[in-house]
């Protein structure tokens, strides 16, 4: 009962904060929606409105070359009253999205999969935060709030990633596959989360039932399920827009990076400088780089699939072509699930100060470059490097901590002693 009351209180408070921000500062949503840190070409709400306008006027939403988001968002948002005049309904939807995301995150926390899995039990598994605290960490994270106020569609993608994780950790197969396929449908790269989450789901089901299901048929069925649900989503989209051209305008843009609007990631600057003849090659290299972490991590940390999935979201926040602070918000909200690793992490101060430094200086440097004209693109790029460095430190440090934690379980006599890599 106590938890439920706390949870209700938390949700009410989070909703109130967002409502307050929406109503007290009516220009704030539009201001944030124009910030490159929050809105990327593939998640911007302003671009969504453009697509919506074209869609409601029976023109292909991809005609203008502005809209790069999934087609199914259009009928959803066209049901809502026009945002320019009645933003309230849209705001409520985004608040609900955040609350649902927090709910999913709390379900993950309650499942306890972060510290205790089927094959692994952390020696510090008593060290954990309550689900309400973790939910609060998500809901009151300024990055999450900014994403919600800017009404970026990455809030939706985050929601479905969290839901996929929650359902996988509960072993709810159908909802897991469906949530993951929607997440992949909305922003493509969550598809890479499928193997670790599949293992997570397998472990959850194996724990529940007496006998572990056959791994091969399990994988085959789930992969088929993913293909079917993704395929049907794409098919519905093609029926909706009555052509397959949306593929090139949505996933094609994510893959080939034609829009070099600055963002907090590492790609845009690199590709503005790239020789034209090597552009395709380095696009391939960058994508292979993002994807190459998945198999290695999944194999090495087979026993801690939720941790792999979390680390992958961190890698997405750094290395995907169009990252925004929404991706970082997702990762930073998932990290507290691993409270038991915190004592083993060595660079918490460095990482947190770097991220804080970058989040304050980023907008300032962007202002210097674009508006004041006293800086240049290198200013902003340097600060995005620092931002990515901060996130990478968190990723690397938490990886170290997870491995150290495994070692402690394997060789309890080494607990608390210094180790050295050979």
């Amino acid at each position: 009962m106590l938890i439920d009351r706390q949870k209700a209180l938390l949700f009410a408070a989070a909703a109130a904060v967002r409502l307050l921000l929406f109503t007290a500062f009516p220009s704030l949503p539009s201001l944030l929606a124009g910030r490159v840190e929050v809105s990327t070409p593939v998640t911007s709400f302003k671009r969504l409105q453009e697509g919506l306008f074209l869609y409601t006027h029976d023109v292909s939403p991809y005609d203008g070359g502005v809209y790069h988001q999934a087609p199914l968002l259009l009928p959803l948002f066209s049901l809502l009253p026009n945002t320019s005049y009645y933003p309230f309904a849209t705001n409520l939807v985004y608040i609900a999205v955040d609350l649902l995301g927090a709910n999913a995150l709390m379900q993950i926390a309650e499942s306890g999969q972060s510290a205790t899995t089927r094959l692994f039990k952390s020696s510090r598994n008593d060290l954990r935060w309550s689900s309400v605290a973790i939910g609060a960490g998500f809901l009151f994270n300024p990055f999450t709030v900014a994403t919600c106020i800017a009404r970026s569609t990455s809030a939706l993608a985050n929601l479905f990633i969290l839901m996929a994780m929650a359902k996988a950790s509960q072993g709810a197969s159908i909802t897991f596959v469906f949530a993951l396929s929607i997440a992949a449908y909305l922003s493509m790269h969550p598809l890479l989360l499928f193997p670790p989450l599949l293992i997570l789901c397998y472990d959850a089901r194996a724990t529940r039932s007496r006998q572990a299901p056959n791994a091969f048929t399990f994988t085959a069925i789930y992969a088929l399920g993913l293909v079917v649900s993704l395929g049907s989503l794409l098919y519905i989209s093609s029926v909706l827009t009555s052509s397959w051209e949306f593929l090139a305008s949505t996933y094609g843009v994510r893959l080939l990076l034609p829009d070099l609007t600055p963002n907090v990631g590492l790609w845009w600057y690199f590709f503005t400088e790239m020789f034209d003849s090597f552009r395709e090659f380095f696009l391939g290299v960058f994508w292979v780089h993002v994807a190459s972490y998945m198999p290695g991590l999944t194999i090495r940390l087979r026993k801690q699939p939720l941790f792999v999935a979390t680390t992958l979201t961190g890698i997405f926040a750094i290395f995907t072509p169009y990252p925004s602070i929404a991706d970082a918000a997702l990762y930073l909200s998932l990290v507290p699930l691993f409270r038991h690793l915190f004592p083993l992490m060595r660079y918490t101060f460095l990482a947190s100060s770097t991220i804080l430094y970058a989040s304050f200086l980023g907008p300032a440097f962007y202002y210097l470059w674009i508006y004041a004209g006293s800086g240049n693109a290198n200013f902003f790029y340097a600060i995005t490097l620092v931002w990515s460095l901060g996130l990478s430190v968190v990723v690397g440090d938490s990886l170290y901590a997870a491995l150290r934690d495994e070692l402690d379980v394997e060789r309890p006599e080494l607990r608390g002693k210094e180790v050295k890599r050979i």
Partner: protein
Amino acid sequence: MPPAEGADVPPTPNSNPNIPPITKSAITAMRHPPPESKESLRLRRYVILSFWAVAIFIGLPIWWKTTAIYRAELPLQIMTDWADGKICRPVFPLRISVEAPTLQLQDAHNLIRATQHALDDLNEFSAHHLRLMLADAPLSAANASQQVVISGGPGDRSDDEDIALSIRLIPIETGTAPRSILQPYAPTLDVYYSPNQIPPPSSTGSPLATFIAHELHKIFAEEQTLLAHLLSTTSNVYTAKMKSLSSETVTELERQSTRTLKYAPTYHLTFSLFSPTFMPSSWEIEAALQQYLSPLLETFSSISNFTVDTQVQLYATFSPSIRQPEYDENLKAWTLRKEDLSGFINAAEWPLSPSIGVSPTVNFILYVPDQSQSPLLVKESGANSWLVPQWGGVLILNPAVTGQSPMTLTKDALTPAMHTFSEQLLSLLGLPQSPASLPLRLSTLKRVRAASLLFSASSTLGALARLTKALKSIPIPDNVAKSVDTAIAHLQQSCSDLRDGRFQGALENARIAETAAEKAFFEKSMVGQVYFPDEHKVAVYLPLLGPVAVPLIMAGMKELKSLRGR
């Protein structure tokens, strides 16, 4: 850092999780670390293997696919053969029809055969030969096929043009005979003869036949020289067989060709009126052009098209770099020195745009000097007009005798200027000086242009073939291959048109071939990588891929070593 408590700290079995270690510091362990568990060993191999698998099965194909230089297949041998002149030997068979309505058919045949003999004896240039035939010989079996070709379409222009020249044999009773008159505005040579000059059927030569042959040879002499010169300079195959041209002829031809504008399907003509004062402020140029120039341009339309614009510029002084005109007592005129003529055009201030659009511009300048400096002439020759090679012509229009220079230049006042400009235009376009008949000169120009386009397109193809062979690193897109195919097809067409005497078709095909060849040669995307040597690729690849590759390779090698050691 060595552990403080002592030697009983073994290293972690697996602290390098997914990212293979970059540096391996050799540690001096006091005791050997405990052996790694089988499972962790296997895990590590899998991890390393997974990274290698991604690199090899995804990375390598991407590298292969994205950095491969696409080279469309080009018919290199054919292109080289064209450039070397191995495929097409341009020949210029000219058909000359003979109209002899008053002659007996047999006599006419005899005459033609005799003339043909005489002509062939005179001709030293095998590629260019004249063939005589009887214009209307309905009964002649030998000429029946030609007759069909000729009468195929009475109104058909191209068939009409197949006849380069027609000879009209006109019998006269009095006056000197034989004599000939070349019609100035029709491709017709009138030959007057007295009936007794018809050769008897048995004889092989006759004065009339020899006369006609000589006349024809004279008419086409300049064309032969032009073509011979063209063939000898552009294609080395003919050099040996060519009749040797005298050095003066060659110099003269060179001079002409430096003057001539490069061939273009469209020329832009600009007529400008410049005056150092406010007068004259208008001219009846439209009417003058209509009357004097339009017919000329129309006759040229089978070779090139023209667009025309005009302008009036007042208070236009000539450039300060040249010496001001001096008054010459003998000539009673103001004079410009000949060496100053090149600086007469004030390029800095006179608005003469170098080129409008893609087509080259030909400028014609009418300069009306100030009242105080009139008449203005060229000192050495007393002339008032000159031609600027490959650029245009200038004419100084001195107002009639004395008195006020008029506010408006009438059409009549412009007449001499228009005549001069027409002459200059013809010269700039490379129209030969002789013969006197304009249609004949035009058709000569057509043949010369067709041949030169043919050669320039062929040599462009050859250059492209050499470029392709020499630079292995440039990409060749599909549209280059397509252009080359177009060029070769039209070259072939043009060559066979020439052989069959269809010169208009030959010119058009050669023009298309030339355009396609130029387009293929100057394709922009081909040159992007020319200045990108292989060393630069190291600079592109290493900074990014080096740091990634080193740990991958080191980890892979270490695992291989341990596998072998076991």
